[in-house]
């Protein structure tokens, strides 16, 4: 055979091979194998109920492949098709919002196909979520801190839940790297907020932010130090119940969780905003008991709180709080009788952090094995008390890890809480839909633009409080109020003056939650 014929044959074979290859490729493209299970994705956005106004739930597909196709659809509207060479799936915001808005109360299907290196597609089972009818409050205020006591970077942040916008409300670098304590809102309204801060340089102001103005408060009386730990607004907005705790940290030698917290003393008081008067009552500030975590009933007639006998530190494992309440008449200032609502024995552990749903129907609280400080416990469950029936139960959404710092949305249909369920170490904000009968549905983590955001985040996001709109106060206003507090109340004779902003690390030190 001559050389030219050989070349010709080669060219013909090559030309024939091209369509053949294309055909094989097309066959593979069209050949999709169903695998009979949903794709593994993280965060876990499967079988969850989501608000119709939530930001896109971007996710990472934990299936190996070279191409990824995701189709997000519902009853009405065009499906969202995403083609990606990476397993990180970022959903377009505008189309997502449109799809959710058009399908309130409907199912949301997520179909995932993955192409492997050989060119074969794998079709996974549809992931089905539900779009709730009720929206969630648009903003979340939360605290971002590192894992331990040296708070070089701690801030109160707010996040728009309808997109990924995040902003700093107050960062501790603006006041000597002090501690930003709990933030509390009146009826989910950011126009009425209290926030506690503390630092060796500026003292322990309680910052009251009302209608765009911030003023420092110093609720000190003969019985109280002026330092506030937890606060609860009376529904009228005229009164705040406050606690004064003396937390100390202890270290375990071999328990799964290193740190533990013991409360050496805790009492409750009321702080009237109009007269700036501290109201004490012996029934809620007994020396032989710790009264903690105040919460007002929605009609404002009862102050609920947690209470346990005051024990010496070595009996820290025996601290178990009951849920109590006491009547209070705002107009006359008359106190009612002290009542036990639920005992620790009945709850199956120490009761902490009671929070009423805005409609007043449910009381959500934590139950831990012991202590009045649930945050450092390996396990902490969410429990619900139905005020109408008096029945209480552990919520099925509670994980084997720590779920705490819960709050309600203003329509009583959503709860936000910090949970360590992802890795047992770092708290992340989770949301759960609570239906009319108080059944909480599978929670989902706060969505982020980067689906792998939580994989490497070494900060704790806690105290998630749902609010209806952004906090209308600038960081500078908070800082000015802190400085102003120092001038007004934080004298040279204060014991804080000689203290360090960096707490010691051994047991017996002041612990700031």
């Amino acid at each position, binding site marked *: 055979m001559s050389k030219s014929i050989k070349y010709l044959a080669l060219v013909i074979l090559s030309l024939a091979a091209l369509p053949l290859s294309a055909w094989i490729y097309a066959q593979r493209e069209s050949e999709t194998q169903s695998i009979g299970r949903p794709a593994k994705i993280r965060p876990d956005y499967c079988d969850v109920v989501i608000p119709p106004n939530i930001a896109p739930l971007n996710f990472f597909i934990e299936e190996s492949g070279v191409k990824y196709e995701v189709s997000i659809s519902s009853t009405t509207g065009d499906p969202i098709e995403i083609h990606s060479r990476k397993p990180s799936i970022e959903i377009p915001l505008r189309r997502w919002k449109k799809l959710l808005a058009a399908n309130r109360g409907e199912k949301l299907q997520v179909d995932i196909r993955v192409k492997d290196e050989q060119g074969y597609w794998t079709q996974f089972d549809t992931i089905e979520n539900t779009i709730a009818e009720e929206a969630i409050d648009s903003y979340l205020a939360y605290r971002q801190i590192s894992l331990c006591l040296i*708070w070089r970077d701690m801030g109160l942040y707010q996040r728009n839940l309808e997109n990924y916008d995040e902003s700093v409300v107050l960062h501790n670098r603006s006041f000597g790297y002090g501690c930003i304590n709990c933030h509390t809102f009146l009826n989910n309204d950011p126009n009425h907020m209290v926030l506690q801060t503390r630092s060796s340089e500026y003292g322990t102001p309680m910052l009251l932010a009302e209608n765009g103005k911030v003023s420092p408060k110093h609720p000190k009386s003969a019985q109280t130090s002026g330092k506030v730990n937890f606060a609860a607004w009376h529904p009228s907005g005229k009164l705040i119940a406050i606690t004064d705790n003396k937390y100390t940290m202890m270290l375990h030698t071999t328990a799964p969780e290193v740190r533990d917290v013991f409360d050496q003393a805790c009492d409750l008081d009321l702080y009237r905003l109009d007269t700036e008067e501290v109201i004490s009552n012996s029934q809620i500030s007994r020396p032989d008991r710790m009264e903690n975590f105040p919460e007002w009933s929605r009609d404002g007639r009862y102050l609920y709180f947690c209470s346990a006998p005051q024990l010496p530190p070595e009996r820290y494992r025996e601290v178990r709080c009951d849920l109590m309440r006491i009547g209070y008449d705002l107009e006359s200032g008359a106190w009612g009788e002290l009542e036990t609502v639920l005992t620790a024995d009945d709850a199956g552990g120490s009761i902490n952090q009671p929070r009423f749903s805005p409609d007043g129907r449910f009381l959500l609280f934590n139950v831990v094995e012991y202590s009045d400080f649930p945050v450092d416990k390996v396990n902490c469950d969410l429990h619900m008390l139905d005020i109408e029936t008096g029945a209480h139960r552990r919520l099925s959404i509670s994980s084997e890890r720590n779920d705490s710092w819960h709050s309600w949305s203003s329509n009583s249909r959503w709860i936000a809480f910090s949970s360590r369920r992802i890795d047992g170490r770092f708290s992340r904000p989770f949301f759960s839909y609570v239906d009319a009968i108080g059944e909480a549905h599978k929670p989902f983590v706060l969505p982020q633009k980067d689906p792998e955001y939580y994989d490497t985040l*070494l900060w704790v996001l806690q105290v998630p409080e749902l609010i209806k709109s952004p906090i209308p106060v600038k960081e500078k206003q908070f*800082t*000015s109020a802190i400085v102003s507090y120092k001038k007004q109340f934080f004298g040279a004779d204060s014991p804080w003056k000689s203290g360090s902003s960096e707490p010691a690390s051994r047991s017996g030190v002041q612990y700031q939650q």
Partner: protein
Amino acid sequence: MQRALREMCRRTSRAIPSLFFWALFFLFGCLYLDPKLIHYSLFPYWRLPPYVPGVDTFGILPDFPGKAITRLAAFLLHAYSDSWAGALIITATAWLLCWGAGQFISVMSGGRLRILRFIPAIVVLLQYSRCDHYLMENLSIASALLLLFCYTRAPIQRRAYRIIIFLSLSVVIYYAAVFAYLLFVALFVIYEALRRRDWINSVAQLAAGLLIPAAAGVLIFDLAFIEAYRCVLPYNPTIANTHTIVLSIIGYDGLVLYLFLYAYLPLAGLSGALWRINRDKTKPQPEDEEDADQNPTDTSQPWLMLIAPLLLIIVFGGALFATDQTERKRLRISYYAQHEMWPELLHEARDVASKDVDASYCHNVDRALHHSGRLLDDMFAFPQKAGWELYDTDMTPSPYRPLGKIERNTELSECYYELGRVNDAEHCALDALSALQYNPRGIMRLALINIVKKRPDAARTFLRTLRKDRLYRDEAQALLDQLEQDPDFTTDQQIQQTRALLLDDDSIGECSLEALLQKNKHNRMAFEYLMAHYLLTNQTDAIARNIRRLADFDYPAIPRALEEALVIHAFKTNSKPVVQGYTISQESIAQFQACNEIFARNGYNPQAAYHEFAEKFGDSYFFYSIYGISGVKQ
């Protein structure tokens, strides 16, 4: 063609000395300054907001003046982990400073005095020889010089335009490199006044420069008025109310050098301008002055051939002379400890002066001795102090130890982990991480701790973070892969060994060495540290009581220090030292007798016997038990 070739040759020959200088600078930086020592100290993580590989930590931070350069410095500093990369960055920064200074001086002096451009290189070398980094500050100054260069070369004559350009550049420098803001304004004002002789523009720029912080700080960054001005200061003694983490814990020497560099440039510009004015008065203006500006020929002057070697001696000799050897040793010891390079650590620790010994030194040396199997033999060959072996002291912050407690926690967490005090190790590592925000060494320790504690999910979070760090990527990935296959690490021998050291019963408080030995009698580290503690606190009776534990390990002979303690104990109690399975060496007994003879010769006066005793037995427990110090034998 020939002319062009000649010109090229001329330019090349002029560039050779400069290239030689910078090559030498790079080599000096790489081989002598060793930037990896800075990287592995905790300083970079404290001085700057953390650069977490793969995580936009700066994106979360609110905007603050100087954020761009701070971010760049944090990023570049991460490359210091390789000494050659660090040296390249240091060289590039120094070159930028010298080039910018050269351009400015040249413009001001009419192409003369460019030799002064090398001063910043000297300052940079001195800074690093003091074992600290000034990357952020140096880059800020270089940025200011770069903008000034652009301004001087811009062919804009109208005053109004020049003012507008100045205003724009001022905002840029305030936004990006606030540390050099004042310097930037000063250089512009000097340039306008003395080079362009435009006094009106100069005054206008000065006024505008003073107002920009108020406008930019308040309007762009929402800073308080005072704060807007405070952050333009070259040195800000407090960080409490600033929106930037500035020179909070800068060393005194470093501060002087930094301020010198800051002040040097305007002074050099002024000198150049005055020199030029004086020259103009005495000599007629050369016709090709602009050429002189563009192509300064000063480097071809013959006298420079003599100056050049002198310059090299001044630059590199100065850096060698100014080196903070104490700090370098400290950094090296810390580096070797982190990399578990025990022989190198012990070699480095041999000639540390007693006055420079602190808890960190003792802790690292004792750990190195333990890992080399020499703790109970050779511990008294090094300076020791009771309690310091386990860092039982808080480090007082000082220029040398600005991070006191954080440093302690970082080092201690590793030792605790090895001892089996895993919870204490976790607590220390978490504390250090909280303070530093990104501390790869601590993060790896936390990952291992969580693996030991069978918390694979938490370990994954730490390891995924480390996977984005090129220095820890492979190690982190290997552990992640292993976690996938065996979440409890049941087949990993090292993890199993550590688990075997853990206490069974939980309690509140400190986990003692005795308790660790009670749990696992083969915990060699706990045994050696317990014995070391008894030795350092002169509890010879406790050593005699616990010497039976030697049988739980594979010591070929009684370690020297224990043997000496047993001899002393026998002498005190008038008994015969007996250790089952071992014999007290005749050498120890003979040495004890020799010690007694020294005392006898000196009338049993310890002070009188000190020198002879130290010379012969300064590395022994005999000496320590009398004088309470060790490591004095030459």
